[in-house]
């Protein structure tokens, strides 16, 4: 066992911290609270910070250097995300492009596609959104029904996608669509499509938080050019699975870092009110910290396994269930402990200004649903890990 960071990793983290001290003007929650901002200008804040990160070499961590990436290790990527969360830095508006579409192009795209798309992705000149999930398919990605009909050399797309992050601000979308209605896995193709064209309609989808970070997109005879197919026809499922697998290491330290920051802010609030002196409050906060440290330990273990290039074990389903369900408990308990003040919207006078607790509380309800619901993850554990029988 060795859980210590390598000297290189420590150096990387220390440089990053110094860079953040210098370059992050203020926490994103403060940006949110600045009355000068609206939804559009907040996206610009995020875009601008992404450009700064890119200029400093902190973007496309896993991409090869020839494409503007850093060729960084999984540990470095994990540290980057954790430190950004601790600093409450603006989140990238292009994370799905860089995390999923970029790797798809690097591994499966043509030279032309790479040259055309990768630089503008990193620089955030073009924002990408994801067209994987569908309203009818839920957690079953192979069940998608969006179809691509041949139109000369090209294709015409018909269907609907949901959970489209930052759709209204996106320029391009990468889409899984059926080029064969019969072949469940082999009939899916990976397309790149511009959003500003006839037949593509982006609709903001209001979430329970009242925001519309996610949207829906409707395709009605939208054009997908043959030159914008990634890989071959029918390879879309395989490519999607591969690039989703690349995500394995980078997020290992993120949840515990993010929740750790939230716990810190909770402790601040309870110290200010004096409630932290009560034994019952201490016990509840202590239990939250314990659970977050176990989450961190799980993350360290997964990261170690990625760093060693070990084959994936049960950890991705365990980690997903753990962080998503824990975040519900954390926000639920935090709000309860903060009393009436804890109920206030972050914009309300008298509210704590360091965490948008109401948003976090509501957002935590999505965590157990997207990217494979808790139910699906438990099925995976029971069947693949514990090898329990099917009827």
């Amino acid at each position, binding site marked *: 066992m060795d859980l210590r960071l390598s000297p290189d990793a420590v150096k990387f983290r220390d440089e990053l911290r110094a860079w953040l001290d210098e370059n992050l003007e203020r926490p994103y929650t403060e940006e949110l609270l600045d009355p000068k901002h609206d939804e559009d200008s907040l996206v610009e804040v995020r875009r601008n910070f992404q450009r700064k990160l890119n200029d400093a070499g902190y973007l496309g961590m896993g991409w090869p250097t020839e494409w503007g990436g850093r060729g960084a290790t999984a540990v470095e990527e994990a540290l980057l995300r954790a430190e950004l969360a601790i600093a409450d830095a603006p989140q990238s508006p292009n994370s799905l492009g860089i995390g999923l579409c970029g790797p798809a192009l690097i591994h499966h795209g043509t030279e032309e596609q790479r040259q055309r798309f990768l630089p503008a992705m990193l620089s955030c000149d073009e924002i990408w959104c994801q067209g994987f999930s569908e309203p009818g398919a839920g957690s079953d990605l192979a069940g998608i029904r969006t179809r691509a009909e041949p139109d000369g050399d090209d294709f015409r797309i018909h269907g609907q996608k949901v959970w489209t992050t930052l759709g209204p601000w996106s320029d391009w979308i990468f889409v899984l669509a059926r080029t064969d209605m019969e072949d469940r896995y082999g009939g899916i193709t990976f397309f790149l499509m511009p959003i500003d064209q006839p037949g593509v309609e982006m609709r903001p989808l209001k979430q329970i938080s009242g925001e519309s970070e996610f949207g829906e997109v409707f395709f009605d005879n939208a054009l997908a050019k043959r030159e914008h197919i990634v890989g071959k026809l029918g390879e879309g499922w395989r490519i999607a699975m591969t690039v989703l697998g690349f995500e394995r290491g980078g997020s290992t330290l993120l949840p515990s870092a993010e929740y750790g920051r939230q716990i810190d802010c909770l402790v601040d609030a309870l110290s200010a009110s004096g*409630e932290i002196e009560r034994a019952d409050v201490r016990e509840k906060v202590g239990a939250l910290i314990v659970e977050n440290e176990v989450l961190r330990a799980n993350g360290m273990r997964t990261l170690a396994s990625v760093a060693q290039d070990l084959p994936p074990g049960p950890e991705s389903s365990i980690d997903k269930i753990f962080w998503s369900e824990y975040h519900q408990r954390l926000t639920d308990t935090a*709000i309860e402990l903060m009393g*009436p003040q*804890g*109920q206030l919207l972050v914009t309300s006078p008298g509210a704590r200004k360091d965490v948008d607790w109401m948003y976090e509380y509501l957002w935590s309800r999505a965590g157990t649903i997207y990217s494979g619901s808790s139910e699906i993850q438990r099925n995976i554990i029971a069947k693949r890990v514990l090898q329990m029988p099917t009827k």
Partner: protein
Amino acid sequence: MHFELNEDQALLKSSTRELLESESPIAESRTVMEDNPDGFAKDLHAQLGELGYLGILQTEDAGGMGAIAFAAVLAEMGRVAFPGPYMDVAVAVRVLEDCGGDTAAKWQQAAASGEKIVVLARGENMTNADDTNVAATFADGRVTGRKVFVPFGAQADALLVDTVQGIALVERPDAGWNATEQTTLDHSQRFAAIDFDDAGELLCDASKGTQVLADAARRATLGASAVMLGCMESALESGVAYTKEREAFGAPIGSFQGLQHRAADMLIKTESTRSAVFRAAWAEENGEPDAGYVVSVAKAWAGPSSRFVCGQSIQLLGGVGYTWEYDQHMWLKRAKTFESFYGSTRASTENVLASSTHLNS
């Protein structure tokens, strides 16, 4: 022994459901929340007054219908996440009656009829809703101090202010309240912090006021528990209904045992809350000596249970459960907000422990 509502109560319950279904279904609750600056429909509030709902907690002689009817009505309101100060006004009406005197009687009539909005202004502590210490004072015909999280305080025509000297009535000044909106998770539940330096009238002194306010707090605790029960009912019903329609992996998702057992847990919590709430309502209505105890039991139980049921209702729906368009969030927000007010889970639990002297049955 019987547990069912009596004929009058059952009729009230069904007519309340009809009224809300026609005048204020949950879609309307959403519209009010989004578009109505007051956070409630004044016409409908007035209608509730005309129909006698606002005077429900008054003594029988004054036209009240009792705590069981009150709980039954509020459970119906919880079902549609009904917005507005109904409960707060109903409680205040009874406080006015308990205070007695001409001024109180005049306002009692105005509030019960729905003409005027009158609510209590009690808490002063931003981080503890159960702190009953007050610093606000009444002196020389003026009320001074600061109250926080006054429900629909900004919309009120008069406030019943808990002061060191007793319960004082303050009418809205011509210039309006010196109020700061306090927006919570449940956007349709309006709160305000209010700074007082206003003319007022003492309705009853502190020695009597303490009991009057304790009675009011107990009734509000009961009412909030009933609202949460209603939220749970709807969240359970609509969540389960969805699992019967929605298909995945070739079968309705409601046929999967994982979701079936979850739904069973939701039913257990919901029905147990019903038992606890109506046991408490019965004790309150009959002036049982353990009324305070069983009311606190109901609230301490309804809080975490309603969070569970309303949260899991979102989970049953999956992605669409996370959208504004579906109703699940309305119930979750109401439940979560009510848990921290009108006797928090912690305060209710403490009250239970304090009143339990070895629990002889």
